[in-house]
């Protein structure tokens, strides 16, 4: 599935999202479920390769807060595009816990959500194979004005002084 950066650029995916029934390889960047991370933390933490965790919808940013130093990627699952919990999780990871690694949106998201995800701190979005990438890229520039502060454009205070986001 294509992977888009927050700029809209398609990039190669360095990570493998690992189902729970597959063994964890010794090398390579893998993403494990939150459940598996909790159960196999000792083994996984000692592994000498990049590790990410996939948060199911409903998990909170605080569920991985103590481990953020060790995690190179946090993937947020959107089971339904209408399920907007991931927007808050992304924002909390950035604003509350200061996470600087990759935050990835996976599952069912639509192009119109792309700019909102980016403004909440998401760095990559996994889009369906059938997606028309030009529509996703265009979505980033459709609305160029934002009325409120989010994660993107950190420097300014929440002023409601409208600023350009695209």
């Amino acid at each position, binding site marked *: 599935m294509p992977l888009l950066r927050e700029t809209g650029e398609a990039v190669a995916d360095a990570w493998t999202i690992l189902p729970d029934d597959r063994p964890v390889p010794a090398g390579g960047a893998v993403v494990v479920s939150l459940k598996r991370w909790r159960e196999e933390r000792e083994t996984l933490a000692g592994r000498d390769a990049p590790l990410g965790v996939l948060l199911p919808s409903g998990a*909170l940013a605080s569920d991985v807060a103590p481990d953020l130093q060790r995690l190179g990627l946090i993937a947020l699952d959107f089971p339904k*595009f*209408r*399920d*907007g*919990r991931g*927007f*808050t*999780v992304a*924002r*909390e990871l950035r*604003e*509350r816990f200061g996470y600087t690694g990759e935050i990835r949106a996976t599952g069912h998201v*639509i192009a*119109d*959500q792309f*700019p*909102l*995800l980016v*403004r*909440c701190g998401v760095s990559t979005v996994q889009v369906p194979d059938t997606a*028309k990438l030009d*529509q996703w890229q*265009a979505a980033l520039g*459709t*609305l*160029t*004005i*934002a*009325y*409120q*502060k*989010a994660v993107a454009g950190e420097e300014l*205070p*929440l*002023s*409601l*002084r*409208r600023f350009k986001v695209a």
Partner: protein
Amino acid sequence: MTSSTGPVGLYQYDAVDREFVHERVEQFRGQVERRLAGDLTEDEFKPLRLMNGLYLQLHAYMLRIAVPYGVLSSTQMRRLAHIGRVHDKGYGHFTTRQNLQFNWIKLAETPDILGELADVNMHAIQTSGNCIRNVTTDQFCGAAADEVIDPRVYAEILRQWSTNHPEFSFLPRKFKIAISGSPADRAAVKVHDIGLLAKRNAEDEVGFEVWVGGGLGRSPFVAKKARDWVPEADGLAYLEAILRVYNQFGRRDNMYKARIKILVHELGIEKFLTHVDAEFARIRGPKFALDPELVAAIQARFAPPPLADLPGHCPEFEAAKASDPAFARWVATNTVAHKAPGYICATLSLKPIGGIPGDATSEQMEAVADLADRYSFGEIRVAHEQNLVLAHVRKDALHALWTELKAHDLATPNIGLVSDIIACPGLDYCALANARAIPIAQGISERFADLDRQLAIGDLSINISGCINACGHHHVANIGILGVDKKGVEFYQITVGGNAGIDAAIGDIVGPALPAEEVPAAIEALVNVYLHYRKDGERFIDTLGRIGIQPFKETLYAAAA
């Protein structure tokens, strides 16, 4: 003040606001095209069109146009009249959310309609969908004599903050915020997801009393007090904290349990507030503080209109009342004191006897626009009771205004009386409704057609909803009427004792639902019980409070039997 800000008393969009609205129109045009090309499924398109105010109803699309905090200019009203004439059937419907709905819209025409609205700085953004909806307030804001804080300033700040909010556009369910700046609370703040009462402390600083978890619908709740005082600067941070807790913990497994009121109810207010307080403690501070310069800049946009320096006593006005009893009666019911001497706020009733509550024809909208230009600085308000308001009328011109209003059937002297009925569109239009609301309103209105009798009955609210979603706010009416479906037949459940004001209360069910044809007589029977027991000066709600529901129950079911 530069010319780009336009007339005072109305927030005029500047170049940035206009650019945003136009971009949003183009965004929606693109979404419609992607839907038609199959790049968006109907399931994916639905919330996008809803966030642009477009519903699919029983017979056609309905477009719900935002009237932010219920204030609009004569130019905007003329544009609504034009759209009604060209794209609808020559009328529109003002709603309890202070918005305007057109009920006969073609999907293909909507991007153009939105473009026509954008030309006069209007839109339909977030009038539906699981997002923060149009913020509502007191229809007499900036004018009422009893006002402490002008709520428009904060309503506009909330409008900006909530517009396309990146984190809160896919909430568990819709989210409604109301704000009042007067102790009388004409905005029904305690039956909203968040209700704000703007007030001043002993140091004359502005802050908010915050209420949370109110709402009507299937599970009605009066809101709980979250904080007695949130300083102005922290207002948005506190709202962000509430919304963030709701977005994380609100139920998404059952749409009927997804509103914040259910979360507050299930967690309990203490536990809910523990989460909110923790979030608030983290996020309050410079980044989320509301900049006093910004507040001042928006306040300047809402400066009072150039009111003349008039004496409080107006001999012409007093003489007109003395010589024209019909005028005097209209003044008694349809006006409210203005904060400036020599001025008064006038309510234009959209509840003519036997009419459809909240409906206005394109001709009436144009007439109101002209009257607003001549009598009230070109400014109009929509009341959540589905009437219109000219807020700054000179007392010495009021008789002339009233005379003109009569010619347009906008002078029914019934504000607050038994025929000032709130009703949702009901089964005549709405895909959700179980029963019709409009004919019930018409039937009651005709039964009480005698205006002298209405005046003798006094202050009494009747609200009608065509289904449990309660768009007609039946729970908070003195007499509430709820349409239900019993095996394909329309029945109506009656409640008494609701109140939408500062003493908000949910009404109690009187007894089994009644068939449509018995409703007007049943309402009359309830009114007669009140008149029988009434003591001097008591309103319906006072008498009910004193004698209890039982006499009403007995009479209603004796009458219906």
